[in-house]
């Protein structure tokens, strides 16, 4: 007889994790333990990488966008070589070798997804939102992107070409949204405040708060 059979079953058995630890967290902890044990990474490497990731923010991407809105030559350089343009503003484009900016225009709207996992320009946008990593967005963004956009509050005209970009490999994509009308008198710093994370994923458009309309 095992001890398992010797106690009353008036309580639920816990999963094979520490208390309330979610299964994914337990898996990550087990992976880290194993990688450390095998000498592939050190605990300090993991901590430093997490520190770096959570220190990143969409305000960096927003600075690129705002500069591109006020400086057409910078915009061209940003579209030609996004990584080099980030260095121009003393921004860290991250370890990924290639970041590509995609320009939205009156005729073309881009939105970004990673159907295979959750590839994302973390260095310039910070950690991705949970919905970006979840299956519904990852599957529907490619198969019914206009319905997804509507749920985010974006209504595209039928004659706008919608380009969904699936970042399956080594390239990280960042959307350069359109500058809203009514912002002609705003400074570059004020413009950067209008540029949201979602607008750089392509599921939102920058909107000018009524109080700052000129």
């Amino acid at each position, binding site marked *: 007889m095992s001890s398992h059979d010797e106690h009353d079953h008036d309580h639920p058995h816990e999963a094979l994790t520490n208390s309330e630890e979610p299964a994914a967290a337990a898996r990550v902890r087990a992976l880290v333990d194993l990688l450390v044990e095998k000498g592939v990474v050190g605990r300090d490497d993991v901590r430093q990488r997490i520190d770096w990731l959570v220190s990143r923010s969409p305000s960096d991407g927003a600075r690129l966008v705002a500069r591109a809105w006020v400086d057409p030559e910078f915009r061209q350089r940003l579209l030609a070589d996004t990584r080099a343009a980030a260095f121009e503003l003393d921004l860290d484009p991250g370890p990924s070798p290639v970041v590509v900016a995609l320009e939205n225009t009156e005729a073309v709207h881009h939105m970004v997804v990673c*159907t295979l996992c959750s590839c994302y320009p973390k260095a310039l946008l910070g950690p991705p939102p949970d919905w970006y990593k979840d299956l519904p967005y990852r599957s529907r963004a490619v198969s019914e992107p206009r319905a997804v956009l509507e749920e985010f509050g974006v209504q595209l005209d039928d004659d706008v070409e919608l380009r969904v970009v699936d970042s399956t490999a080594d390239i990280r994509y960042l959307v350069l949204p359109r500058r809203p009308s009514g912002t002609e008198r705003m400074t570059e710093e004020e413009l950067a405040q209008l540029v949201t994370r979602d607008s750089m994923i392509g599921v939102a458009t920058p909107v000018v708060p009524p109080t700052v309309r000129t």
Partner: protein
Amino acid sequence: MRVAARRHDGHHRTPAYLKGKHGTVTRVHSSFLNPETHAYGKDGLPEQPLYLVSFPQSNIWPEYGGGAADRLYVDVFEHWLEETE
């Protein structure tokens, strides 16, 4: 070109929904380590050229309900692309 329809049991970066579909190369990225070997602790060499390939949405989803000009852009490695006329 056409995305190869072949099956691949290990890690690879070609989404199933694209296999066998016809598209157009719109941008040539540089070359990158081959994820199919690199993911298994090997060196990933030789590097494989990566392309941004564009597909009309109607080529991928026959029931697609959006705009006629809507397209999907996907990064695909060269060894998954087949030339067509």
